[in-house]
């Protein structure tokens, strides 16, 4: 797939705080890519720089090979969807969607009949056909966000940029809109970049995920890649619960408390390391075969699965996700085996 947008060595400083450090990223034509990171990671700033709403101190933005770094926002042909919709309250839904087409110079503006037809098509696409003459104040949050998307799509942008598009919505509406956005993307093949701090949202929706932290790009890859082979502890921690265990790397393997684990050590790594383990990579076993031991502190159900907190003396309690269905009462001594995990150089 050709590269639609290339970000090269982008740096940006606000006042004195650096928000982007020498960041580079290629976005392929037609893909849906999620920029994932905690707040303050610079993901929204990156999106705004691509849109032309903010300006980098260093680096370039290329649209299909053309340098667009100095191009004013009006000429970038991007469709930007804001977290709080930013609909024009004094305009009807139809006027909102038609706004970008009407804003074109007379020579490039489609005739009014054509504009009306396109607005009608977009309203069908977002399933709000009967709403053309309503005002934004008469719509729900989810409906407003769909109008905002239609308004951005109306100008036939070369890239669609969404800034925390579902951040202001209820959990249920958010899930529905997520699925619906994926459908729209599959139907239109529109190159799309969206920003989120919600891992589930990024992993469920994206073709590829770009994980940002402190203004640096940590990893880019498919949802499977970033989950199965995180390249850093930061990515691993950000993508879900994990525990950290002191371990030794020796002869290509990782040992915990003298017992070997199935985890392979990166080549050349020898000596004390930190082993990162997901809750489902721990298993209850007889104390004799265990890598770790402790006593059960409490157990609870989370999203249908049993989770057991295990006390290990002075350290933070471990969380184990158990699948064997056995009941674990508080105070019971248990042993744990490590079936997998990650070690970073």
């Amino acid at each position, binding site marked *: 797939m050709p590269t*639609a947008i290339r970000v090269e060595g982008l740096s940006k400083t606000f006042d004195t705080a650096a928000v982007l450090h020498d960041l580079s990223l290629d976005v392929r*034509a*037609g893909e849906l890519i999620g920029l994932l990171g905690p707040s303050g990671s610079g993901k929204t700033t990156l999106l705004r720089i691509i849109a*032309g*709403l903010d*300006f980098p101190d260093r680096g370039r933005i290329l*649209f*299909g090979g*053309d*340098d*667009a*770094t*100095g*191009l*004013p*926002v009006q*000429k*970038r*042909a991007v469709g930007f969807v804001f977290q709080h919709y930013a609909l024009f309250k004094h305009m009807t839904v139809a006027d909102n969607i038609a706004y970008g087409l009407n804003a*074109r*110079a007379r020579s*490039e503006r489609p005739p009014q009949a054509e504009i009306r037809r396109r607005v009608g098509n977009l309203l069908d696409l977002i399933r709000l056909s009967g709403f053309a003459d309503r005002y934004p104040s008469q719509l729900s949050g989810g409906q407003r966000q769909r109008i905002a998307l239609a308004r951005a799509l109306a100008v*036939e942008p*070369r*890239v669609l940029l969404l800034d925390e598009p579902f951040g202001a919505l209820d959990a249920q509406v958010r899930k529905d809109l997520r699925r619906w956005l994926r459908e729209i993307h599959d139907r239109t*093949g*529109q*190159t799309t970049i969206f920003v989120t701090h919600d891992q589930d949202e990024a992993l469920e929706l994206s073709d590829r995920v770009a994980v940002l932290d402190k203004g640096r790009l940590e990893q880019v890859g498919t949802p499977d890649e970033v989950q199965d082979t995180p390249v850093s502890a930061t990515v691993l921690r950000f993508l879900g619960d994990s525990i950290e265990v002191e371990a030794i790397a020796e002869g290509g393997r990782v040992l915990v408390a003298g017992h070997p684990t199935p985890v392979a050590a990166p080549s050349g790594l020898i000596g004390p390391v930190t082993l990162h383990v997901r809750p489902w990579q721990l298993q209850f076993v007889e104390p004799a075969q265990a890598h770790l031991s402790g006593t059960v502190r409490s157990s609870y159900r989370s999203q249908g699965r049993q989770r057991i907190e295990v006390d290990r003396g002075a350290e933070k309690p471990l969380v184990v996700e158990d699948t064997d269905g056995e009941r674990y009462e508080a105070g019971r001594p248990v042993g744990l085996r490590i079936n997998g995990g990650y070690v970073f150089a």
Partner: protein
Amino acid sequence: MSETLVPASFAAADRAAAPPASVVTEGGSVRWLLTGVAILFLALFLVLPLVTVFAQAFAKGFDAYLAAFREPDAWSAIRLTLTVAAIAVPFNLVFGVAASWAIAKFEFVGKSLLITLIDLPFSVSPVVSGLIYVLLFGSQGLFGVFLAEHGIQILFALPGIVLATIFVTFPFVARELIPLMQEQGTAEEEAALTLGASGFHTFLTVTLPNIRWGLLYSVLLCNARAMGEFGAVSVVSGHIRGLTNTIPLHVEILYNEYNFVAAFAVATVLAGLALVTLVIKSVLEWRYADELASGRAH
């Protein structure tokens, strides 16, 4: 997405231009032009008249300025103005606190009508504000005959001036306190009551500290208007020199007698009051913005 959807203008764009600091503002030169026009307009229409007051007052030197205050009439005008303000401001203060307590802390039928009626004096011309008291207490007024028979003097005397002043400054305190107290709700008062405080004690120790800056703010504006009121007072005062002339009326008389230096000299007292009011008002707005009612148009 295919390349064909890119507008033709895109490739040929003027990318040489340096990017602006923000996309949501006007260009630098437009910004400076608009700022310049706005400041020039304010300087010409608002600041210049204020400067004129002081320039004219000192036009013939400091001695001529001071001479205006050696006149006993000037002092009696100052005394009268202080007396009027000393009655009208506390009256409106008590009224304003009582009215906003009733309106902000309770729900009752006809509340918005009551607020409209309290605001009424703001939309009445000052001259009409004086006129209505003449129609009540004047020789041909509703109570004129009764007052004359009993030898009670209201018009062309202190009571009339005080009444007219109270009328024109009536809404000041209430209008500031009502939105402020509505914003603050009743939770703190309810908490105090559950802890066993009496109603009055609750007001003194809970409500009053919450509204103190708003109260000061409104009293300040009320006082400035009370001391400077001209139209309404002019109608009810009778312009008796040394007796029923307030400072603004004294200024008018001096000006009409072509005694410009004296007129502007006395006017500097009021202009100074206005400046002090503006300074304190601005300080309150900067420092205690959260403790004042929001969205003021007055």
